[in-house]
């Protein structure tokens, strides 16, 4: 009983000690956002107030161009009310973004005539539909990239010629803005008749490949000479050394690089969706930017952030399960 009380007590302090400051920071960020909405949208808000016949302090739009945004706010304090609710704002306020997310997920699927309830398939205007497109390309690409990365790392550890010829290029390639190639690969593969999920998956595989190679080579090399000698005294072959010593030793390194790799895969997929407008969160962002629909961009951005968080959390969850199954300290 005493033990349980202790644990409960400790959990209580953890919540107080860690969650509270984080919540305070997040609340401060949202407050800052609400404040920033006013000067960001002030010109548009004043213009529409002027159209409705209100008296605005510098009375013409040309004169207002000469005045700074923050100065305009203080000159027209009585007109800032619509800042938080105007359409087509330069910076939508958080509740407008939340409403857009709701409208393009639940509302679109359940109540609209294109939604899953009416038609049986996901609406092509909903964030869920675009999110699934992005998610599937990311996961497929990540699995391909990570798998090939592990295989290459095993080859590098066992073959000195491979190590010395490939590793320097693998490290150099980390310094190159590889994502910049993404649109080109998409267009080239499109021209060659490869469409849909695969081109994006190739890019995200390419991006997740090198972090895994570099991390995995480091991990497979962690066993020191003494441990390798020990395996030799047990007359273990290369395969047994790999399976029973090197691979288990590399697991922490593998997961550390997998977390980087999956975040990189997601970035690769989103950038890969920019040139070919066939759905996905990247396509939503670009469409929003073409039509000046900022709420749509922000909604897609939050969906991408949520997806990144879930993917990294999932890798972390598998890591904790694996470490526990291997008997280590999680």
């Amino acid at each position, binding site marked *: 009983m005493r033990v349980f009380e202790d644990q409960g007590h400790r959990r209580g302090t953890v919540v107080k*000690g*860690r969650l*509270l*400051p*984080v919540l*305070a*920071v*997040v609340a401060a*960020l949202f407050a800052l956002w609400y404040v920033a909405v006013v000067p*960001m949208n002030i010109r548009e808000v004043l213009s529409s107030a002027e159209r409705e016949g209100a008296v605005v302090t510098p009375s013409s739009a040309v004169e207002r161009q000469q005045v700074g945004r923050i100065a305009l706010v203080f000159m027209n304090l009585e007109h800032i009310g619509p800042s938080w609710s105007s359409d087509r704002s*330069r*910076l939508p306020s958080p509740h407008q973004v939340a409403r857009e997310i709701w409208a393009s997920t639940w509302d679109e699927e359940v109540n609209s005539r294109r939604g899953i309830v009416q038609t049986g398939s996901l609406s092509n205007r909903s964030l869920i539909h675009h999110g699934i497109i992005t998610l599937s390309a990311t996961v497929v690409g990540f699995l391909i990239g990570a798998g090939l990365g592990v295989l290459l790392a095993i080859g590098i550890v066992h073959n*000195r*010629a491979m*190590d*010395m*010829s*490939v*590793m*320097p*290029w693998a490290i*150099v390639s*980390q*310094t*190159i*803005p590889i*994502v*910049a*190639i993404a*649109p*080109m690969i998409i*267009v*080239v593969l499109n*021209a*060659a008749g490869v469409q849909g999920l695969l081109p994006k998956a190739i890019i995200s595989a390419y991006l997740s490949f090198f972090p895994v190679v570099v991390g995995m080579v480091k991990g497979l090399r962690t066993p020191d000479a003494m441990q390798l000698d020990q395996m030799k005294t047990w007359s273990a072959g290369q395969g047994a050394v790999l399976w029973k010593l090197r691979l288990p030793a590399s697991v922490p390194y593998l997961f550390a690089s997998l*977390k980087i790799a999956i*975040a990189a895969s*997601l*970035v690769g997929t*989103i*950038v890969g969706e*920019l*040139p070919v407008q066939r759905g996905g*969160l*990247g396509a939503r*962002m*670009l469409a*929003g*930017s073409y039509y*000046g629909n*900022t709420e749509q*961009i*922000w909604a*897609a*951005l939050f969906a*991408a*952030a949520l997806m*990144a*968080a879930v993917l*990294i959390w999932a890798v972390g969850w598998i890591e904790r399960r694996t470490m526990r199954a291997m008997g280590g300290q999680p």
Partner: protein
Amino acid sequence: MTLVWSALAFWAAAWAVNAWLTRDAGRARHPVVRLAVPVIFGATILVVWELVVRGLQVPRVILPPPSMIWATFTTSLPMLWRDFVQTIVMGAMSGLAMGTLAALAVGILVDRYDGLRRGLMPVASFMAALPIVGTAPILVMWFGFGWQSKAAVVVLMVFFPMLVNVVAGLADTTAMQRDLMRTYGAGYWATLVKLRLPAALPFIFNGLKIASTLAMIGAIVAEFFGSPTQGIGFRISASNGQLAMDMVWSAILVGALAGTLVYGAIAMIEKRVTFWHPSQRG
């Protein structure tokens, strides 16, 4: 078809040379061999690429041979130089400088106030993993098509990884070192400048290496959402539309060279500045 067979033969021969060069561990440690092996590998890829593209008559709009890319690169150097200045110098480097300085300032503040550290750091390490490049369309809308919007994207992208590294670095002193500073009668600022900032340098350089790549990516991708008529990202998307793949690859070559140069410069400064750190001692 002969060209394809000779490509395969060249590959096999080069691989045999590399295998022979590295068979003996003593010989493999020789500096000339250490340089030659990756160079042979890189050259092999270029030769095989050239021969296969020519041999199979791959259309130019899908994959141009390296010789053609090189020819385009050398003939359009003045234009590519303007792209380089627009994207790398004005966009990426100014953003990298602003983002790094901001992260240093915030990092020192966060390190000073424990409540701020516990509140901000989980948020910062979460933000560091997000696809921040997605803010590019918004920032291009706010700051216009010029280099300012690219610098803004870069600032956002590099800020969080840098902040995480700065804070981790400032915490990387032992109790013994801090006690020693106290016995010297050093206050907070003296300890910060003489002990903790130098101790944080390896972390800061580690962050800078990550951030320099992110800066290139941010500056180039932001140009896909709108740019003046120069810049590496603009060149890639515009030439892509004209199916001028040789120009696309030349622009990518500029980006690759710039990335390698910046990374190399940071690594060199790191070697000079943090010579005392174990990772820099042979």
